[in-house]
């Protein structure tokens, strides 16, 4: 969401900007309730409307035809495909995903998640996935995030990137760290500042 909104305001990026909710892994965290809000901000949002999802509730992993064909759209497209092996395989459903040279697959890593909580775990996790073009350090602990935790995450993600020969594209951090972090995370990666939407995004 933040990336899509960011792109919206950049002159060097093709418009329109389309944001696609393809998270079938854990759809409890979903764009559905934010769809209207994001549309008002100028994004084209491809997601279910909650009122259309009879019985899907928190677990419904059903995709829409317009999701399957979304890469045929003009402009720039941001796909949220969930996480893990299942997330990476979601691209198989998207028409043209396999042969699109412009499709960048970015792996978002968080040292705060137990599954990627150590260097070893993070490396193993990244190795299991299909092709990845870049890494993003998104290490955080929600409300309890500290500057040092973000930086520790940046360090571990960098190590993983070196071993796998994948560049680290950025570090993501909450807006409140802008004063302390500035433009770089200390290891030379640019920082992308985030507004947290998810606290009120429950399906």
């Amino acid at each position: 969401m933040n990336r899509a909104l960011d792109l919206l305001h950049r002159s060097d990026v093709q418009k329109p900007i389309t944001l696609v909710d393809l998270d079938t892994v854990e759809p409890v965290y979903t764009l559905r309730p934010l769809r209207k809000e994001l549309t008002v901000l100028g994004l084209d949002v491809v997601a279910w409307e909650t009122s259309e999802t009879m019985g899907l509730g928190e677990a419904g992993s059903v995709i829409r035809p317009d999701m399957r064909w979304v890469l045929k759209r003009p402009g720039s497209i941001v796909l949220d495909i969930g996480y893990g092996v299942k997330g990476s395989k979601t691209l198989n459903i998207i028409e043209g995903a396999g042969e699109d040279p412009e499709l960048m697959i970015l792996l978002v890593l968080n040292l705060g998640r137990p599954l990627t909580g150590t260097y070893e775990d993070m490396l193993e996790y990244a190795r299991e996935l299909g092709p990845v073009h870049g890494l993003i350090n998104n290490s955080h602990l929600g409300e309890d995030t500290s500057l040092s935790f973000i930086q520790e995450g940046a360090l571990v993600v960098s190590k993983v990137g070196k071993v796998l020969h994948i560049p680290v594209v950025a570090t993501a951090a909450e807006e409140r760290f802008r004063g302390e972090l500035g433009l770089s995370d200390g290891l030379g990666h640019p920082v992308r500042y985030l507004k947290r939407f998810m606290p009120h995004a429950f399906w």
Partner: protein
Amino acid sequence: MTVELNMPKSWRQETKPHKFCPGCGHGLVLKGLGQAIDELGIQDKVVFGCDIGCSLLSWDFFNCDSVQTHHGRTGPVITGIKRARPDRIGIAYMGDGGGYAIGAQHLVNAAMRNERITVIVVNNVNYGMTGGQMAPTTLPGMKTETSPYGRDIETTGYPMQGPEMVAAIVREGAYVARGSMANVRQLKTFIKRALENQIAGNGFSFVEILSSCPTNWSMNAKDTWNFVEQEMPKFFKVGELKVPTKKEE
């Protein structure tokens, strides 16, 4: 609103386009069912019961009286209706989880009693709605959310052979078949025969349809089609398994 071409008359237009995933087999099965209902002219007699799971999305699919039940319990609800109102044509529509796991005892006993209902099980070898867990029908070695390293038949058994099991226990008069979304003409024929068998009062009618779940299989259209057409029939043989000998023609 886009109206699908050749939409069966018994389909409810207000609820189309339907909400199944692109490439999902449910749409094709329900189309075959709709055509069969049209051809038999039974729209006003059908009571359509749907299970929980993806089949739930069909609760308002037809201009037929419909009732959405609990997971696995559609067979009993339709049985109860048919017993009290034998002039109704009862259709119990469910997935392989509802038919072969949580509702297996109902399927077995409805078959044993030769209930005059039609049960349609859409087999996509996983639990779709809940995010792709292993089902009784999951193929050996197949990776799912609850068999991330592949289904181990030593610890989780072999894919359930629904129609074979039903065919083995039913009496004369029952109709048992397995169709596939890969052959929609045959699929419709099987469903139609199953309904005709109920109308004739011969006995229990059971059709399994091999179907797809591209979303949870994470497969593109070509691979999905290939899986349904090539891989699934290796375990699930398509065809009629039991046909009443005394056909009422």
